[in-house]
């Protein structure tokens, strides 16, 4: 039996959801560890607020596309565009997202908060492009 102090619902995990959505493009995770291949997509939640009574969450997600600097800026730009296309597809068509456990989820909305652009990255062998997206989510029954 769950603890009486735990609410019975919680917001969908935005990072998990966007990682699952972008996975078909290239390896995608919340962190890149040494040896992970490039190009690579990083997904982080960088802001947001929730209304447990409404059962809604409105979050800001940052999507970084990492490419090897040796491939050059045009290659990095092409990968950035693919990431953006995938996010635009979700924004316009509101596709169902299949999570890694095979279950399907949906989002309320996706809007582009910041168009993707090149940003500095601590590892100088990597070119990073960053975009940010506002995403609306629902609460679902907590496991």
């Amino acid at each position, binding site marked *: 039996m769950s603890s009486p102090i735990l609410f019975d619902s919680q917001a969908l995990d935005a990072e998990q959801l966007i990682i699952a959505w972008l996975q078909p493009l290239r390896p995608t995770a919340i962190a890149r560890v040494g040896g992970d291949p490039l190009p690579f997509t990083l997904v982080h939640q960088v802001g947001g607020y929730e209304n447990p009574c409404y059962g809604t969450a409105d979050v800001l997600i940052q999507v970084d596309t990492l490419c090897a600097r040796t491939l050059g800026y045009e290659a990095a730009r092409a990968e950035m565009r693919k990431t953006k296309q995938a996010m635009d597809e979700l924004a316009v068509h*509101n596709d169902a997202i299949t999570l890694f456990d095979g*279950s399907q989820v*949906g989002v309320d909305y996706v*809007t582009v908060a910041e168009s993707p652009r090149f940003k500095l990255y601590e590892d100088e062998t990597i070119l990073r492009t960053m975009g940010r997206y506002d995403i609306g989510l629902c609460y679902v029954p907590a496991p």
Partner: protein
Amino acid sequence: MTAPPVTPPSTGVSWKEAGMTDFDNRLYDRGPLAAVLIRDNGGPTTNISPWSQSGTTISAAWSPFSADGNIRPDLLARTLVNGKWTTNASANEGFFMIGANDEKGGADRKASVKHDDAMILQSNFPFDSDLTGEGLTIQFTPVQPLDPLLRRLRMNLPLSDPTGTPIVELPGITFTISKPVDAESIDRQIVLLFARRKAAGNFIFTAEGYSLCKLTDIGAVKRDKVNPDAPSLTYTVLPDPYHVGKDAGDPTSTELVPAYYSVWTAGAGWTAIAA
């Protein structure tokens, strides 16, 4: 249903146990999946009543949804196929989708209710109150003003000929159109479609059918660098003599009653709630 006792029970419950926190976000509705469909009202040929009556038998009639709860595929008179606007050659309902809406522009449905309080000498409070007027307007701002459909809507011109055949020009063809001086009363019909993909991945679809509408306002248009050169369009909903529905006060009645407008709800996300 058991009638509650007249006197309160001796023992009460908490706020939660009383059901005051029974929130259900599956019934929440928001999001960008919205479409405004419009066509000319052709009287009996554009009857969108959800029910029809034959003797004392009531049966389901028009719906924007298929039997499986999804959106029916034959709503539109034209579609965008591989970047080219194409007349729908298959049998269809003849609706035109107005395209993208302004982000804050629609579709706004605004009800107007007027009332008259009966005041009496002996009290400062109304003795009674009567509704003396009810109405509804629909306002939206389509942001694809180059579309010949939008030119016709803005000029309040017909979308179909007297036989019901659509006459709206396809985008891209040589196109000139003029607003006639002679005023003609144009009856429209508007269906607003909305969808929300629920957390479990399934859609809940809703549709609002306004059987008879007339243009009653056109917003100002100002061309600038970033905003679309597009006015808001406001339609007033009128009672359509062909539009009937079940008597909501007596759902088992075998008589349909005149209806102002109708709302449909469907989709796998909706039926899953009942399970």
